[in-house]
Structure formats: C-alpha cells, structure tokens
C-alpha cells in the first residue's frame, strides 16, 4: 500500500473500570488539538494526481456545448471528463431519489453544480485547465420559492419525475408532501379562548465543518478501486458509487479517513465518484480536496423554511389545537428532503400534548442550492416556530412561558400526532423545571473586572461598540423533541464484528465496525462497551471500512444506540461463546460453571457472586472467538400519505434551554451570556462526551440564531457568501457559558437505556436565544438569524 498516512491507530488501553459510564478520553483528542491528526485532506500517495471539479457559474441553464479540447491539451493534464465520459447507464445518484447527475447532463439546476472534472499532476494545473473548459450556457428562468415553483407555467426543475413520491405530490416542483391530521382542529378551535398565529422564516444554515470534502482514490490491479474518504456512512456511499463505476460493490473498497466534522453535510456524496472515475480513467491515484469556497457548493445545507402556525388555548392554559404549514426549500436535488419533511411534520407540534392537529409539510424543488441533512433534520425549523408560538400564546394568556409549557408538556404515554404512543420517559416538564431553577448569571458582568468595562462581556465584544450604553438583558426558554434513529419504516441496522483472543498472555478485544467517527465519540464508546461486556482492558478499534457490514449513518443521533448496540450485542454473543469454551475446558472443575450467572471481569470469568472461575487467557488459549452480527432497533412504519398516522419513530430525545442575552438595542448587537441546558440522555455512556455533544449542539443552535445564514440571491439563485469571511460561525467570544444538567431516565428498549443525544440540543438553543432577544427588545423577530437591521428597524 502506498498510502503513507492512514487513520490514526486507535488502540486504547484502559484502566479497569474504564467501561460504560466512565469519561474516558478520546484517543485522537490530543492529536487533533496539536495538529497531528491525519485528516482526509492530509493523505498522500506517490504518483498521485489531483482532481478538480468545474462547477456551474449559473443556477439554471441549458448546456449547449462543452469544449474540453484546450483543457486536455494542457501540459500535466491526464484526464478531463464530462457527462459523455460516464462509463455506464447509471449516471445519477442520490440518497433516496437518484436525481443527482454525477456530472451535469444537458442542463444545470443550481449554482455550483459539477459539470466537468480534471486530473492533473498539480492542483494548480488542474484548476487552470478547468478554467479553459468552454461551456456554452443558455440561461433558463429560476424558481426560488414556493410561489415561483408552483406558479402556472413554472419551469420544472425535474421534467420527467418517476420517483416514488411523484405520484402523490400536488406539483412536480414539490419533492414530497406529508400531511398529519388527527382529531378535528377546526372543531377544537371553537373551544379556544385565544387563537395565536404567526409566520416564521428559518434561514439556510451550513454545517460549516472544518475539514473540507476530500479523499483519495487508488486504482487496484483487479480493476477495482480503493477509496479513502471522509464520510458519514461508508456503505451508503458504496451503494451509490459502485453502479456509476460499473463495478461490483466488492471491487470498491472504502476506508474511512480522518473526518473533520460532518453534521449531516457528508451524508450525500461529494468528490467520491469523481475521484474514482479519474483514478480508473488514468490508472493513477487521484486526490481531491475542496477549498472552503468550493466546500460551500460541495455539500447540501439545512433547509431554509417558511412556517405558518396557529395555536389555540383555553383560558386555563391548555392547548386546544394546532394548525401549521411548513414549506422547506430542498433546492435542486432531493437529497434527504423526503425524510426531512417526515420529521418536520411528525414533530411539528413539539413536545406537547395536542389532540387536534392539522399539519402539512412540503419540500420544494427549486434552483436554490440543494438542501438535505443537518443536525436536527427538520425538527430544528419546526422547533424555532412552535417555541415562538408557545411564548406568544403564554403572553396572550398572561401565563409564565415556562409554566404554560409545563401545563402542556408531553409525558410517557402521550399519543403523538401520528397516533404513536410515547413509550419511554419524556421528562419535558422536569427539564423545564431544572433550567428555570438554575441560578441566573450576575447582571452587568462587564463591570466585574474593575473600573473599565470588560468589552468581552458586552455585545460587540472586542469591537468596542458599547461600554454598557443601550444594553438590555433578556431571558428566554425553549424545549424541543427530536426523533432518534431512522424512521418511517426504514430497515435501520448496524453491524459489529468483535474478536477476542490472547495476545502476549493478555485477553484482548478487537472491535471492527464501519461506523464513521466524525467527532461524536463512537470510538471511545465502543471500547468502553467492549471493556464492560468482555472484562478486558485492551481494546483495539479497527479502522472503519467496507470489509465489515454496514453500520448505518452517523446521523439521526443514532450511532451510540445503533452501532453501540451492535457492539454490545456482538460482545454478548462473544461472551457466550467464551463461556461455552470455558465450560468445555474447565466446567468439571467447579459446579458454578453450570449453575451460576457468569460474567467476564478484569480478565477473568467470575460468578455473579464474585468468585473467580478461570483466567480468560486460559479459556482463550489456542483459539480466538470472532463474530460479526447485525443489530436492529424495533421496526417502524411509514406515515400514511393522507393522514400521517403510523408508528414512525423509534425513540425521542428531549432538551430544554434557558438563554440569557445582553442586547445592545441601539446597535442591534447581541451577546449571549449563558445558555443553560437540561437534557435527558437515558444513560451517559461517556459523561464527558455527552457534555461535549450538548455544548456543541447548543453552540450550533446559537450560531443560526444570531449570525449563520447562506444568503442566496432571490433573482439569480446564486450564493452570495460562500466563505468564512461572510458566513460567520460563533467564535469562542460568541460562545457563552453552557451549564449542562444531565438527566438519566432509562429507555428500557435501548441498549443500557441510552438515548441518542447529538441533535436535541441544537433544536431548542435557537428559539431560546430568540426568546431572550424578544424579551430584551419587545420585538417580534420571526426570522433567523436575527440581524442588527431587525433589531434597529434599519
């Protein structure tokens, strides 16, 4: 193998007791903060070429011709490929609907769509050659919102739809539509003492992962290809890549390389097929690394949304009904839009009891950038709107916003709008109680340091815009609900291979899964699980690749539940085998082998009473135990296409936030002082990682509240701020103190009782910040992100 830098060796030692519930440290943590970790963009191969993608400079156009001759004639260029060079009849890919061309065919549908790819001996040569490709575009009118997409005579983004949603959508520019109707909202509205409605706009957020899309494809002697790439789901990539290359899946061998963040943005393919095509065409390894600018075009974003809500309530504070309509803009290609619609609609009510609902969610096809998965996945947009509504209703009723939420909070046994009962703890009221009970940060903290105002504690920070003038404090609350795992009847499973053997006289375990470690901490948790289940200290986590079965996606807050569950499940089976071997070897020495509950602890077989029966080293001497098993959560059902009824979800995750902000009301600048969180995690397998996830998700929610938005020109559908200069994400000075209160109420159906945790904190963080800013300013603020213009009326 010529690949000189591969993913970091993840052998982890562990003190006895470094099993589940311990805050073991990430094996790659120090490497990452010292800059030594090998990310996918760091890979190198002798003789490798550099790939470059030429992207459309316009959002919607017919491609009249492409002339690659000058590019091909450039010295150092090895290949220039367009649609016509694709080797098989499979020329599209996609997560659910295969509507995305590998390279544009006949037309481009969004700004930044890949049209041609170049391989050259130097990245600059590839870039310059690509600039010599002449494309004759004939501009087409763009559709950029619901009105233009569904207007009479609107241009169709996809003319010939034959996907499984095409038959039930009201317009070909609607990817998917999911109504959810339960009870009778119109009738129930008659019981309402107050009815409150609102229109909300959620901006397009970017995942803004720090490691841009990158990977290395190495052609193999057998005609196949080895692909090293940063992704979220190896096997999903594989399923989409192999047919385009015309190769059987076993000839496309994928290995996860160092991933610099994902947040949903790596669920869709980016450079994978392109690098493989160039490698197979040139017979040389091909590396592709996007720069930051290209990265903004290289992955899908969070769906921007428009949401209309109507809530009714009785004078005593009980919700009567809810009507809502959620329009998500999916952009030019479907990506995860159908599933995002499913989430937005089924979670549109939030963590509340409402018996009579009338909900509709749609995702559009438009010429805007494609949108798909991002942390919170449809539930984020809904939470922003329903939490704003909950505050409005509370205000209308003269009730405290937290008490009003508690009065309507769902709990175990509540029936969801989909008719599905909530079958595990849903401590919504308790989470709210906890954040409300936390002490508030002191007032005017900028005065704490001494005579001079500490501008770091003020809106504007180091920019020195206020020393306290115009600054008003606000406090806001929000709570959210997120589903965990893949829903709506998807066969969601994970695979784990576990090997137990004696090495150097010590029993050791090896865990092999295809789980994409994107920063969530699975590599730590898998080792902890193996220690707990197998009683060993040394656990080796093998690099994730496609030599083992699918682990499913690192998304939907599912990996600890699912691949963690798979590791636990396989470890249990390995343990049974080990005990079987032990019984065969030593069963006659002690009756407890036959009668007691046996455990593996500290390298020994022990009875549940603690009596040592054998050393694992002796039991395993002469042979390893090696098993690969699949693990599934309980099956779910599709939502009925008319009524939205169905047991669609696996598990729910709840978090609540209290935001404290200081707003400079004259300049419209915001300093979030504190974001307190309470979250039920079922069981914290690694408490340190749990807190890290909650703080990270909270910060990502803060970002969209006050600064993050991809701005798309409504006339041209072109992206206006594809850079970290103008797409701002929070710095440490924007990140507040984040006290975290972790609740552990077990879900009996889940491994160790755990709950997926990664997304829930992203939901309620945004509306809590918005609520706090409203509280400070008295303004309505129905849009994310809140800009200085919104706060100053300019």
């Amino acid at each position, binding site marked *: 193998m010529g690949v000189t830098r591969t993913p970091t060796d993840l052998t982890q030692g562990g003190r006895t007791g470094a099993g589940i519930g311990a805050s073991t440290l990430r094996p790659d943590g120090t490497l990452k903060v010292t800059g030594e970790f090998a990310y996918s963009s760091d890979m190198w191969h002798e003789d490798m070429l550099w790939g470059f993608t030429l992207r459309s400079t316009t959002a919607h156009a017919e491609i009249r011709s492409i002339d690659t001759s000058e590019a091909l004639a450039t010295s150092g260029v090895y290949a220039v490929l367009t649609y016509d060079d694709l080797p098989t009849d499979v020329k599209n890919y996609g997560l659910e609907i295969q509507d995305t061309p590998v390279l544009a065919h006949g037309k481009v549908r969004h700004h930044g769509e890949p049209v041609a790819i170049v391989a050259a001996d130097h990245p600059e040569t590839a870039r310059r050659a690509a600039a010599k490709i002449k494309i004759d575009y004939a501009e087409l009118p763009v559709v950029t919102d619901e009105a233009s997409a569904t207007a009479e005579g609107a241009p169709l983004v996809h003319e010939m739809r034959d996907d499984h949603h095409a038959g039930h959508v009201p317009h070909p520019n609607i990817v998917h539509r999911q109504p959810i109707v339960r009870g009778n909202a119109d009738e129930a509205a008659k019981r309402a003492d107050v009815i409150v409605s609102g229109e909300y706009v959620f901006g397009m957020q970017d995942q803004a992962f720090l490691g841009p899309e990158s990977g290395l494809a190495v052609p193999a002697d057998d005609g196949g290809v080895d692909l090293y790439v940063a992704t979220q789901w190896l096997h999903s990539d594989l399923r989409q890549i192999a047919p385009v290359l015309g190769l059987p899946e076993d000839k496309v061998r994928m290995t996860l390389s160092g991933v610099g963040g994902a947040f949903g943005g790596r669920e869709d393919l980016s450079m994978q097929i392109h690098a493989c095509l160039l490698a197979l065409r040139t017979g040389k390894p091909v590396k592709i690394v996007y720069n930051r*600018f290209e990265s903004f075009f290289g992955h899908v974003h969070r769906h921007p949304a428009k949401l209309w809500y109507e809530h009714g309530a009785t004078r005593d504070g009980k919700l009567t009904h809810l009507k809502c309509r959620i329009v998500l803009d999916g952009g030019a290609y479907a990506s995860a839009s159908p599933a995002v619609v499913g989430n937005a609609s089924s979670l549109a009510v939030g963590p509340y009891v409402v018996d009579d609902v009338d909900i509709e969610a749609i995702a559009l096809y438009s010429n805007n950038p494609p949108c798909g998965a991002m942390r919170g996945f449809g539930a984020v947009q809904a939470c922003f709107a329903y939490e704003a509504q909950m505050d409005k209703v509370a205000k209308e009723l003269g009730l405290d916003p937290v008490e009003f939420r508690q009065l309507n909070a769902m709990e175990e046994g509540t029936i969801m709008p989909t008719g599905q009962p909530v079958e595990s703890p849903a401590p919504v009221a308790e989470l709210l109680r906890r954040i409300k009970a936390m002490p508030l940060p002191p007032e005017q903290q900028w005065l704490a340091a001494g005579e001079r105002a500490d501008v770091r504690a003020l809106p504007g*920070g180091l920019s020195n815009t206020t020393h306290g003038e115009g600054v008003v404090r606000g406090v806001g609350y929000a709570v959210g609900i997120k589903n965990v795992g893949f829903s709506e009847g998807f066969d969601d499973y994970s695979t784990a291979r576990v090997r137990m053997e004696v090495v150097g006289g010590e029993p050791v375990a090896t865990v092999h899964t295809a789980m994409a470690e994107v920063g969530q901490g699975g590599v730590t948790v898998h080792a902890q699980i193996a220690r707990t289940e197998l009683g060993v200290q040394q656990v080796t986590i093998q690099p994730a690749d496609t030599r083992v079965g699918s682990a499913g996606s690192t998304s939907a807050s599912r990996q600890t539940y699912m691949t963690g569950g798979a590791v636990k499940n396989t470890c249990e089976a390995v343990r049974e085998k080990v005990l079987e071997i032990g019984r065969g070897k030593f069963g006659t020495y002690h009756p407890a082998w036959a009668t007691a509950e046996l455990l593996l602890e500290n390298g020994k077989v022990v009875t549940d009473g603690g009596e040592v029966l054998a050393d694992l080293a002796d039991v395993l001497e002469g042979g390893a135990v090696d098993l690969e098993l699949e693990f599934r959560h309980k099956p779910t059902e599709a939502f009925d296409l008319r009524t939205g009824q169905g047991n669609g979800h696996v598990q729910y995750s709840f978090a609540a936030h209290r935001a404290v902000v200081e707003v400079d009301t004259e300049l419209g600048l915001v300093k979030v002082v504190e974001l307190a969180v309470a979250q039920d995690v079922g069981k914290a397998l690694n408490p340190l990682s749990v807190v890290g996830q909650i703080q990270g998700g909270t910060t990502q929610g803060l970002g969209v509240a006050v600064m993050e938005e991809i701005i798309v020109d409504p006339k041209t559908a072109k992206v206006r701020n594809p850079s970290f200069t*103008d797409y*701002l994400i929070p710095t440490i000075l924007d990140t507040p103190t984040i006290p975290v209160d972790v609740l552990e109420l077990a879900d009996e159906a889940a491994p160790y009782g755990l709950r997926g945790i990664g997304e829930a904190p992203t939901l309620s963080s945004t509306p809590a910040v918005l609520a706090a800013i409203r509280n400070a300013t008295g303004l309505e603020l129905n849009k994310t992100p809140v800009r*200085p213009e919104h706060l100053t009326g300019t």
Partner: protein
Amino acid sequence: MDFLRPASWEEALAAKAEHPTAVPIAGGTDVMVEINFDHRRPAYLLDLNRIGDLSEWEVGEKTVRLGASVPYTLIMENLRTELPGLALASHTVASPQIRNRGGVGGNLGTASPAGDAHPALLASGGEVEVESVRGRRMIPIDAFYVGVKRNAMEQDELIRSVHLPKADGPQQFSKVGTRNAMVIAVCAFGLALHPETRTVRTGIGSAAPTPVRARAAEDFLAAALDEGGFWESGKTVPPSVAKQFAQLASGACNPIDDVRGSAKYRRHAVGIMARRTLGWTWESYRGQERSASCA
C-alpha cells in the same frame, strides 16, 4: 507566479521598479485570501519579510514612525499610549494569529474601505511614507484613499512607514460586526480629540467607497466645544451637541447594501458609534483635565 525576496529596501524598490505589477506581501492578510479565493493571480509576489526595517517603530518627540510591517499585536502591546486609537483598532483585526503577522502597510496597500486601521489613521492624522527608485514622498493620510480599493500611490512605489502624531488627547475606535470577534467591519468609526489644536478628527470605515472623515461633524463639534469653552471647563458635552455630531457623522456616510449589512443600518450605526465614542473620549479628557488640575 514568481516569488521575489529582496534582502534590502533598495533591492525591493528595484524589484518593484522592474516589475510594477508585483504584489507586495508582508503578513499576507489580504493577499493570501485573494490568492486562495482565486481572485488574484499576480505574476510576481514581492516578499518584504526580509526587510527588518519595516517591522520597526520609532517614538519621536512629536510623532511615531511606524514601519509598514509592524504587526498589530506589537502596536497593541507597545503603542497604546502614543497611538491609542490605532491600538484599539488593532484589537479588532481578525484573530490573534493574524494580528501577529498583519500590519498597517497591508491595510494601506489594499485600501479597502473595510480595513480596520483606516478610521484610526484618519482620526489621528498623519502621513504615509512611500518610496520608489525615483525617490521618497510623504502622502497625507487625508489624500491617500482615492477610490474603491485605490490609493494615491504610483505603481512603482512601496509603503515604508506611516508617520503619526503622538496622541495629544483621548482617542477611540469602535467597529460593528455581526460577530463578537474576528469579523470584517460592517462599519467602523474612529475619533480623536486634539486638545492642543482644539480640533477633533474622525474616520469612518466601510460606510463609503473609501475610508472617509466626517468633516462636517468635526467642524461642528470643534466649533461647539470652542464656543462653549468646553476645552477649558471640561464640562459635560450636552446631549444636543452629541446628537448633532452623530447626525453629521451619519450624513458623511455613503454606504451600500451588501451581505454584511444594509446601507440604512450603516448610517444608523455610524451615528451611534459617533455619539458613544464622543462620550468616552470626552469623559476621558475631563478625567485627565481633573487629574491635571489636582496635580
């Protein structure tokens, strides 16, 4: 792209004379971004990092001669008393890493209206020392910015230093960005009180095609302070004066709508910053006066 690395100032001038399109690079704050974004592919880069003189400063009796490459970090650490406005502006430049590399010469060379140093330089007053093989000249800062990202330099000239008067009174700098650190200015405002000459000077960033002074606001304020005997009495500036000053500062803006902010907001924010920085500088002046009279 050829990379020229002159070992001395004279060699640098010769190289620039030979290759007038060569782009000088010191910290690279602007140049590297432009290259990364593919906005610019100069035929020559002229690396000035071997010229030690550019990273030095001299504090004279009346002025500070600040080398073009003196990094913002050193300005913050060493020239807070002499150049308080520029030191405050330096604090708002990008991140610590960039402040360790970037200097005022880059801001002046790029002459972007968003450059953080400009409002402080305009408020302070001073001259830019530029040189070519043809000779050296001093360009008053007021005449330096001539158009969008254009300055008064000839193609063969390089920036050697800026000569800035040592502060004779309080100075302030304030910048609006939509993030609390590491952000390009939506708009910015610099204010310097010059008690010795009984004048005030201002600088506005990112709210017009070039960095500009709010001259009407300066004239109004200087007159109001003078007529009311405020310099001598150290009395509080009445809100009506502050308000008028703010409005005139707003009026000096000629901003655009862009992804960073609306024109209307920029005008509004410049007014607020003008009022606040006036409050801070005047309070500081009064404080100094009081402590001076106590002594």
